[in-house]
């Protein structure tokens, strides 16, 4: 089941006007920010499908920019997100794409600074709920039915074992695990679906591992 909590239905508390096109967009932006791990110097946002056709009316652009600046869905600063980004000297580019995507509410975010770049694709599936479908060109094969975490790590021996050891110590069972990498010895990615909700303290423990660069919860 994609929706697990009653608060997915009665909620989120948010700035209007659209849960999928405003709140969902803010969450996709915030997810990109969390995975990047810091405030970017620039961001290029590409909208597809319904997002591309209606983003101006729904405030999808300001919501996603707000998310990139780490704003929550109910943060009233979302309304002024473009001005705030300008003050912070974050360069924003918005693109309306014609290409057809699997889901009508799709956004691709590229962001970066002098130290690196990242690219993420997210979809907004309704009522403010989102899914991340792609990260740095890796397709994330998530069922959406279980809690999931994303671990960005160095591609070297012991990384997978270290992560699974922390999960085991916290009595979290791994339902499925997908490991992919850009090139031998470069950045790699673990997508892990688990049976139990992952608490923040476990995420912190994973972040402490020497092989791990970034950890984010991508589904509850």
């Amino acid at each position, binding site marked *: 089941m994609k929706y697990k909590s*009653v*608060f997915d239905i009665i909620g989120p508390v948010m700035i209007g006007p659209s849960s999928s*096109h405003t709140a969902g967009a803010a969450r996709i932006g915030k997810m990109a920010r969390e995975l990047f791990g810091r405030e970017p110097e620039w961001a290029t946002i590409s909208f597809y499908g*319904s997002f591309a056709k*209606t983003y101006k009316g729904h405030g999808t652009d300001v919501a996603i920019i707000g998310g990139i600046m780490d704003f929550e869905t109910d943060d*009233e600063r979302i309304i002024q997100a473009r001005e705030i980004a300008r003050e912070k000297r974050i360069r924003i580019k918005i693109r309306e794409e014609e290409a057809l995507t699997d889901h009508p509410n799709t956004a691709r975010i590229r962001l970066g600074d002098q130290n690196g770049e990242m690219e993420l694709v997210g979809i907004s599936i309704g009522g403010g709920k989102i899914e991340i479908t792609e990260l740095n060109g890796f397709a994330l094969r998530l069922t959406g039915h279980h809690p999931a975490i994303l671990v960005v790590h160095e591609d070297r021996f012991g990384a997978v074992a270290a992560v699974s050891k922390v999960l085991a110590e916290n009595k979290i069972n791994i339902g499925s695990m997908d490991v992919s990498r850009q090139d031998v010895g470069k950045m790699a990615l673990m997508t892990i679906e688990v049976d139990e909700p992952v608490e923040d303290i476990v995420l912190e423990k994973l972040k402490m591992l020497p092989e791990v660069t970034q950890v984010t919860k991508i589904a509850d």
Partner: protein
Amino acid sequence: MFRNVAELVELAESQNKKISDIMIEQEVKVTNRTKEEVLAQMERNLKVMEEAVERGLAGVKSHSGLTGGDAVLLQKYIATGKSLSGDLLLDAVSKAVATNEVNAAMGTICATPTAGSAGVVPGTLFAVQNKLNPSREEKIRFLFTSGAFGFVVANNASISGAAGGCQAEVGSASGMAAAAIVEMAGGTPSQCAEAMAITLKNMLGLVCDPVAGLVEVPCVKRNAMGAANAMVAADMALAGITSRIPCDEVIDAMYKIGQTMPVALRETAMGGLAATPTGRELEAKIFGFSLDKKS
């Protein structure tokens, strides 16, 4: 975990419980929190809804100027004592409109199940409370009952206008509200399901065609009618009327209709009211381009 309405009703009736009990118990189990924590979070959402209605009834205007002020007009009309469809019904309608006008003005609301359909559940709740005099906890329960039915729709069909049209948004919201009204009025879990089915049947096929892509026209008035639909369906279910098509099958029909709906009618502002001459004219005016250029 209940997977459909039939299981939800069975769970409640076999244990002599309310739908809201089942939803609260499941939430406690899934999120590993106490009942008090779960109720407290819902109370915060209730408070957001109360503030939004209050703000809307005081009068708001959206940035585009397309919507705002209708809730005030309705309240003034109710006060004249001349209403034909009844004060309680119109009160629900005006409060649904109030919430959605606040949403259109980029105010703070609680999505139920979405922002575009956020008016129906609180609108009906804040109207029927004047007749049923519920406790604070019963108002919170109203939201869990709506949530339980929304949960089934979200998992088995869709609550996204882009995926399933307005029937998936205001349609779902109305069904959720109808079920919750029935529980608050003392109806059985089965009657809640009947109310949901009767409501959703009358929302099937409703397209999502927002003018200029804004959640304003016709969304605010669809919330108005969604609230009215929920109130009437709740009364029908409480009177003992049942739906010949079971609730789960109505939800499934809604899903399949959504899948076959043309893209132009699923939140793309390409068809329906958005594509009318006036819809196009408003769009051009709001975004400051000429109509010739667009076509």
